[in-house]
């Protein structure tokens, strides 16, 4: 037997397609974010709340990944967003190729900000870069304060953390210090916003920060 050196990331093929996606988005002048979270953490509600506060400043579009159905894309379209559904047919995460294919048909000239809603899952999407400018994780209070400790890869790989459903904090045994400590150890650079997507609490700060990122990327 002869040994041949490889030393390559196992998902390097995915990463190369992700780079192509980024190039395409940059050429179109579109800033993009990848929303990841457990099912039920409030991804779609947060996207709708973000759109509601941003729509006078930026044109927001949405691509949604789900195992089946067009429920989320329909909600986005109902709010006036250009939207597209990727049905993953059972796959537990979006990958760069799925987004690559979706971008072929998405009206990029109609948006400034493209929000990609990943499949609800706290494990699998973490390893698969899509090529978006930001990776955003939505954690929610009812999930519990131990999630960073139990799902380190997801917390480790994101740029922004939205802590959603902050309004129900008094009703749960959720130790915010313990939660934040875990986050800080895994990801000292992450930018965090506590929000309540349905009431709008805290969403303004997140949206202002996001609008600033979009503006900076244009320069």
């Amino acid at each position: 037997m002869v040994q041949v050196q490889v030393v390559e990331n196992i998902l390097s093929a995915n990463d190369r397609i992700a780079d192509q996606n980024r190039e395409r988005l940059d050429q179109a002048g579109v800033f993009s974010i990848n929303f990841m979270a457990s099912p039920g953490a409030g991804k779609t509600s947060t996207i709708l709340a973000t759109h509601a506060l941003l729509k006078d400043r930026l044109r927001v579009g949405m691509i949604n990944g789900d195992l089946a159905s067009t429920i989320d894309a329909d909600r986005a379209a109902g709010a006036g967003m250009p939207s597209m559904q990727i049905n993953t047919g059972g796959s537990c995460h979006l990958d760069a190729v799925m987004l690559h294919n979706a971008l072929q048909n998405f009206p990029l000239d109609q948006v400034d900000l493209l929000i990609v809603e990943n499949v609800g899952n706290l494990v699998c999407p973490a390893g698969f870069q899509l090529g978006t400018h930001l990776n955003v994780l939505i954690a929610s209070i009812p999930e519990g304060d131990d999630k960073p400790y139990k799902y380190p890869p997801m917390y480790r790989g994101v740029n922004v953390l939205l802590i959603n459903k902050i309004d129900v904090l008094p009703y749960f045994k959720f130790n915010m210090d313990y939660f934040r400590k875990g986050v800080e150890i895994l990801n000292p650079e992450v930018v965090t916003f506590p929000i309540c997507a349905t009431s709008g609490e805290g969403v303004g700060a997140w949206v202002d920060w996001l609008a600033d990122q979009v503006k900076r990327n244009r320069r």
Partner: protein
Amino acid sequence: MVYTEEEYQQKRPKLMHELSITAHLLDLALQHGAAVNARRVTDLYLVIGDLSSMVDESVQFYWDMITPGTLAEGAQLHFERVPIKMRCLTCNQEFTPPKGTFGCSLCGSDQVRIIGGDEFRLDSIGVECDQPLEMEKGT
């Protein structure tokens, strides 16, 4: 290696992410095997940090399922697991925390930083060739 749209459609793995990972792994092994005109790929040496979400047994299961008929049929997977490594900012020692905990196991401080455990790579492959290799292919 750059795939065409069509090739990707055919190759695009579905279902659980270990299957995606395994399919990517097979692509990598075949690509590097072909580059040295290997007759057979016999071994894959993987280095996987404990901060990666990958279950070795699942990858092995899918590997046995998707490799028959390829150059890598019957190839042995070798998993080198790298534990999570942290440095304590208080006592400055390096340590591996027990699963599910992040505090310093030496002094108890919670001022710690991760310094290892993200590894997720194919380090090398073992191949059989008809002609002896002149030189191992570097990267």
